[in-house]
């Protein structure tokens, strides 16, 4: 944590810090208020990295709230510091206010934050905890948020998560976004480019079996590796207008009029690819076309696409995800305005899964 201060002294301490930095060439900048809220202190390092990625292009006042359920100190711990995109950088720097809360002082947190939200600038709330498990602090913070960014990586129950996010959106009218949704951007772009023409789209719509392989390798963070795969299949279904029929372990069955499609999610463990990422996609259509899109595990940005049928075999071609696509997608997801219609449609598809249905 930065310089520990009493909440009353946050602004004066920030002013003092900036006065001492005046001659170092650092420029103070802010485009929006960025509140990061996590109930899991283990995610602090990960969220800190996200914050630094964001401020590289979008400097903001960062208010970082962590909730430590092991802490027994009744006093709210607050600290201030200056954050740069990279350590020891001389470029643009941003205010950072850190708040460490626990059970005993949790209710105070929104009241500590309110005076420090910079006026006339948007408030973006990165809610890095499962919104299906609501706490009183959430409602108070959400009231001021122009944009709420969730991270479904942590969601135990994705359908409940989807319902909770949609309900929050309806309640607050804020834009919504999801970091894990952003992580599927590459695959969505790939699928959109492969099935661009009406012919290809028709074939996709008539798919009878889709298999998505995802990386079940665990990360250091407590998360759920199947989430991106579930998102991807729900997105495909939502875009094609399929209705969810049944959900069984590892399989989603959809229907469009009299046509049925089964989507299977299969875990695999690949050490060279980040945890939870989609590894490959296989699509088999009614007209016996087969599409296979597979990551090169030694160069994970490189995806090889093979297309064939009983009478036809195309030369494989490649699609490259941006080298830095994950970081850029996350920043874009956090900072750009509006709510993706594709994302809300995906959530609506997931929200139709009945409670108690398990696909894991």
């Amino acid at each position, binding site marked *: 944590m930065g310089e520990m201060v009493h909440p009353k002294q946050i602004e004066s301490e920030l002013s003092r810090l900036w006065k001492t930095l005046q001659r170092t060439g650092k420029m103070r900048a802010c485009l929006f208020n960025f509140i990061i809220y996590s109930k899991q202190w283990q995610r602090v390092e990960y969220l800190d990295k996200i914050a630094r990625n964001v401020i590289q292009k979008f400097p903001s006042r960062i208010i970082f709230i962590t909730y430590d359920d092991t802490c027994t100190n009744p006093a709210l711990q607050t600290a201030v510091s200056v954050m740069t995109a990279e350590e020891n950088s001389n470029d643009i720097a941003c205010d950072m206010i850190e708040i460490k809360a626990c059970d005993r002082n949790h209710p105070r947190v929104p*009241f500590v934050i*309110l005076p420090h939200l910079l006026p006339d600038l948007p408030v973006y709330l990165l809610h890095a905890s499962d919104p299906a498990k609501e706490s009183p602090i959430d409602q108070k913070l959400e009231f001021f948020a122009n944009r709420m960014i969730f991270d479904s990586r942590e969601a135990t129950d994705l359908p409940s998560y989807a319902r909770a996010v949609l309900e929050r959106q309806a309640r607050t009218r804020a834009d919504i976004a999801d970091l894990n949704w952003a992580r599927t951007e590459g695959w969505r772009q790939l699928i959109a480019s492969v099935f661009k023409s009406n012919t290809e789209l028709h074939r996709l719509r008539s798919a009878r079996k889709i298999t998505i392989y995802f990386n079940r390798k665990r990360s250091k963070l407590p998360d759920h590796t199947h989430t991106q795969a579930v998102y991807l299949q729900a997105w495909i279904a939502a875009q094609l207008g399929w209705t969810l029929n049944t959900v069984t372990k590892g399989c989603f069955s959809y229907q469009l009029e009299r046509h049925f499609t089964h989507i299977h999610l299969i875990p695999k463990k690949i050490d060279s690819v980040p945890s939870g990422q989609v590894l490959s996609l296989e699509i088999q259509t009614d007209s016996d076309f087969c599409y296979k899109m597979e990551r090169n595990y030694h160069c994970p940005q490189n995806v090889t696409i093979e297309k064939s049928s009983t009478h036809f075999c195309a030369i494989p071609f490649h699609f490259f995800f941006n080298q830095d696509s994950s970081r850029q997608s996350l920043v874009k997801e956090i900072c750009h305005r*509006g709510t993706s219609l594709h994302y809300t449609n995906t959530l609506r598809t997931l929200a139709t899964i009945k409670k108690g249905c398990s696909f894991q």
Partner: protein
Amino acid sequence: MPAVYNSKREGQLPTNFVCCGFARREKTHDCFRSEMKEAVRKHSRIQPLDETVWNSFQDQLFYHQSYFDEDRGYERLAQLLDELDDKFGTKGNRIYYLSTRPVFFTTITEKLKKHALLCEKNNSYARIIIEKPFGHDYHSACALQSELMQHLSESQLYRIDHYLGKETVQNLLVFRFANSIFENLWNRNYIDHVQFTVAEDIGIGTRGDFYEEQGLIRDVMQNHMMQLLSLLVMESPSNLSADAVHNEKVKVLEAIRPFRGEDFERWAIRGQYDRGFVHGEEVKAYREEMHVSPHSCIETYAAIKLYIDNWRWDGVPFYLRGAKRLPKRATEIAIVFKNPSGVLFKTHGQEHESNVLAIRIQPDEGMALKINCKVPGPSSPTQPVKMDFRYGSFFGLTPPDAYERLICDCIAGDSTLFARQDEVLHSWAFFTPILNYWAEKTPKEFPNYPCGSWGPPSAEGMLAQDHRKWRLI
């Protein structure tokens, strides 16, 4: 006293100047000087106390003991002031600053008149400065005015409203009338609405008995906020004389649409603070404060929506809110402009952010203008950004305290920055019906906002019904 001392320190006071304290306690001149020194040391805006300046200043400080209604006391005062005239050459010029409860204004004025202390002869002047509250409601304000006018003229009476002495408030006229770019936008064609906020993070402290008689409207809205409103929306005066400025301000107050019928429920919201957290610390509810009734119905939060029915402002809502125990201390005016056409740059069905001109009266005095800019990159999303001007960063000097400016203006005979009688009465004419309406209805939901929050949900609802929101400040 700190204001007088600082004026002396900055060379703003005339050389021939004497200050005499008048109160009921027995004390010597030196004892009084010593007390004043401590007060100045503690409260002066310029620190530390300059001993050289003080030593010179205290030679012009005296004390006179009397009760406010004691004739003999005023006779002795007249003698003392005549002696000081001879010694310091003050030529019979008098300013009486009544730093007392309003209940004594009439008595003191009457006694001063009776003992020829308000006579203006041989080019001398005699003025009285009184502080708010100027009455309790419209009728008491009229009665006070009538009583005072039996003993002095309007030109001798200076009603001090310290907001008018603030540099940022004085800058409102300069901003509006010394810059051509804003005048064409300063009307109903371009402005969507205006928000006034006077927020305090402190409670009522030990002033419970005083506050129980006042409430938020009497304490802040009827006076300070109406002054801000009239300066912000008035027409340009023909010159900067006191009368010319006052006349334009009064025209604004005359044009405020009075409340009728449903307006009292829809457009006037009140609140009272409950327990909560301010700056991380738990604080008590208003009804738990010292000298406050546990069943008190006095408002510590008020939000009002009003309209000014004139050509310039027809149809533009003005939202005023003032409160105790909000998350931070701030006084601010926000002019929210109408949304631009979103034809070109609309993204995902989002409207553009409105342009906002925020005038920060205190603290962090200055102004900020919110505009929309393009986000660098190949696509064209827009992002609101702020252009910010801060007094402290540009001018460097600590501006004079409001009271310093006002006292010097009173010495100079300039009443521009003081409230005129008709301003006070028009303001009371608008608020008295609201206060009467509230007095007749017990608020069942009090307390209705926790300390440290931005007020009761009903205040948000008042703007929400107009599809607007209170700004975060």
